[in-house]
């Protein structure tokens, strides 16, 4: 392994970090307000698909926006069910995942080729040329966003209201905060970030949509959130670690000597996720009312 290999490995890690970081930061906002969305996997998949279609219709920016819109809309549905209609968050999330799995596979068949769809190079997002390779501008956003959200949650009034909605909804309600509306807004933001992450995968990074494109990234992003204990900066670090192991798995697979069978290499990101999460847990604390709908007495 020489120097250029390390550089290319880190470069791919950065790319792989982006969807995880964006999704995780969005989910941190949602979880702070008290919504635990395991439908992120489905949202990533749907928005990757919708983003690709949007990009083909109106260029890369439209693609990213369509992805964000679809992600936000799906998350809005999730939040509506789990705030005003007092649903069960886990079950809603499972439903979103099943729905997305079916819908994208169905949509890909309708687009022509069952199983995958190429996004033409012409509508891919432009890349910034740097001395160490080409980078998508979305990477920049993924690196800045966690700091912004960290500031937002720690230093602003709105961030505090968000925390109150998750930590002590009853007190928040008494203080005149509309708990359900706050949760709704937080979920829509989280969904839009997951949607941006999905659209980034199809429009800016991989340039294709498959029915297994999300490959557990939504759940790995949840693992990032668990690892971080709702601190966006730690979530960024976790996203980079998991991105690195995804990149490492891809890199080992391309080695001509094949030191390890490909199947075991593919397991690597998931095993690392498990190890990191089981090592990190214990010190983290989650909002008291995470996962329970707020009912007025």
């Amino acid at each position, binding site marked *: 392994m020489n120097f250029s290999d390390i550089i290319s490995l880190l470069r791919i890690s950065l790319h792989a970090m982006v969807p995880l970081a964006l999704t995780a930061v969005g989910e941190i906002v949602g979880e702070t307000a008290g919504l635990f969305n395991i439908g992120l996997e489905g949202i990533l998949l749907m928005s990757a698909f919708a983003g690709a279609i949007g990009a083909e219709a109106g260029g890369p920016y439209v693609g990213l926006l369509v992805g964000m819109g679809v992600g936000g809309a799906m998350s809005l549905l999730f939040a509506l*069910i789990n705030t005003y209609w007092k649903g069960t968050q886990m079950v809603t999330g499972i439903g979103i995942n*099943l729905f997305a799995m079916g*819908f994208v596979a169905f949509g890909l068949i309708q687009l022509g080729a069952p199983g995958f769809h190429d996004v033409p190079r012409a509508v891919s997002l432009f890349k910034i040329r740097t001395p160490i390779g080409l980078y998508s501008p979305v990477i920049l956003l993924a690196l800045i966003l966690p700091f912004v959200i960290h500031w937002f949650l720690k230093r602003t009034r709105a961030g505090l209201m968000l925390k109150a909605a998750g930590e002590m909804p009853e007190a928040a309600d008494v203080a005149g905060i509309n708990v359900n509306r706050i949760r709704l807004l937080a979920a829509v933001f989280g969904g839009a970030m997951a949607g941006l992450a999905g659209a980034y995968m199809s429009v800016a990074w991989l340039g294709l949509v498959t029915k297994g494109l999300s490959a557990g990234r939504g759940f790995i992003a949840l693992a990032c959130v668990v690892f971080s204990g709702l601190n966006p900066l730690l979530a960024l670090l976790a996203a980079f670690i998991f991105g690195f192991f995804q990149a490492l798995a891809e890199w080992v697979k391309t080695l001509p000597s094949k030191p390890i*069978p490909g199947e075991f290499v593919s397991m690597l990101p998931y095993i690392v996720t*498990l190890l990191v999460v089981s090592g990190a847990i214990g010190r983290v604390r989650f909002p008291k009312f995470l996962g329970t709908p707020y009912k007025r007495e």
Partner: protein
Amino acid sequence: MSTKEAPQQSRLLRGVHRTLTGLHPVLESLIAALVGLLVGAILMSIWGFHPWKAYFALIQGAYGGSYEWASSLSRATPLILTALTFSICLRAGMFNIGAEGQMYMGAIAAVCITYFTLPPGLHHIVGLIFAAVVGAAWSLIPAALKLMRGVSEVISTIMFNWIARWLALYLAIYVIVDPLRPEKTLSIPLTARFPILVPRTDLSYGIFVSIGFALVIYFLLWHTATGYELRAAGLNPSAARYGGIRTKRTMFLSFILGGIAAGLAGATIVMGLPPTYAVYGGGGLPQLLNMGFDGMAVAMVGRNHPIGIIVAAVFFGGLNAGGRVMQFYGSNPVPLEMVRVVMGAIVLAMSIPELIRLFPMAKKGGQKLIQSLRRATRGTIEEESA
């Protein structure tokens, strides 16, 4: 009117009242299924299909005759078991999303019985035990992580699904592979295959394993002290702990039972599904794929009750079997994937408690009907109670 009839009648009235105002579980499942089918119909017409023709083909293909019924039941066989995995753990207060991975490992373990010969009967039992033990072992790791390190079982079971998928692929491609046909594993020997129940269909005696296990779970959960403890721990863990129930034990137990169910699901697929009785490594485990996830939808619609699950599994098995007919139906071929879209929509609808309350018109109408019924019978009831 005798004194006996009056309370009966009022009880009946209360039942009708509950049904119409949205507290009745069966009605909720039915409405969720209808909402799911409606969402599917809307999507189909957006994509330019003819939804009612497609559903006609689907229902024909699912329940149109004895062959169709047999193939629906055959698809329901593993779904019953994977749904039980989810339900048992949910009853104990845990979200076990790991049925998929536990089922892969069970299927691989069942294939391993090709390495030795035993008389039929015994060979079946050994295969089932293999699958059950491996499935349970695979689900014990997330349970242990939860207990010892506090890792959320949602994340760990999902990670274990992916690990199981790649491990099963590796084993199917390199270790227990059929040397003559490298795209599949060795086939289950004749002495361990479940005989076909209905000739010329793929419905085997494996269905009795599923239904039998569902009944065992029903008995265990609702008619034994252990089952009572398990459900109590799920309903209110802290109250259960004060009541002297060891919640860690019930948690472990639920994961073990769930793992056994998922492992058996894998076994019923490889030991009971003609023609090859093997796992296909090439093509990425096509017969096993998504059975665990579909099982969660079945569990939800079956209200996490073993008997409800059997009924729901026949419905979803029918969707899968009918979907295969639907995708080749003349001028209106709707891809099979639409079935999963419908399933997702059904689960989304199921996640809203008291779904019918979203339809205030129906609620109001129901209440009016109840009131008029009550007014009509009030005279007689009051007479009796006085």
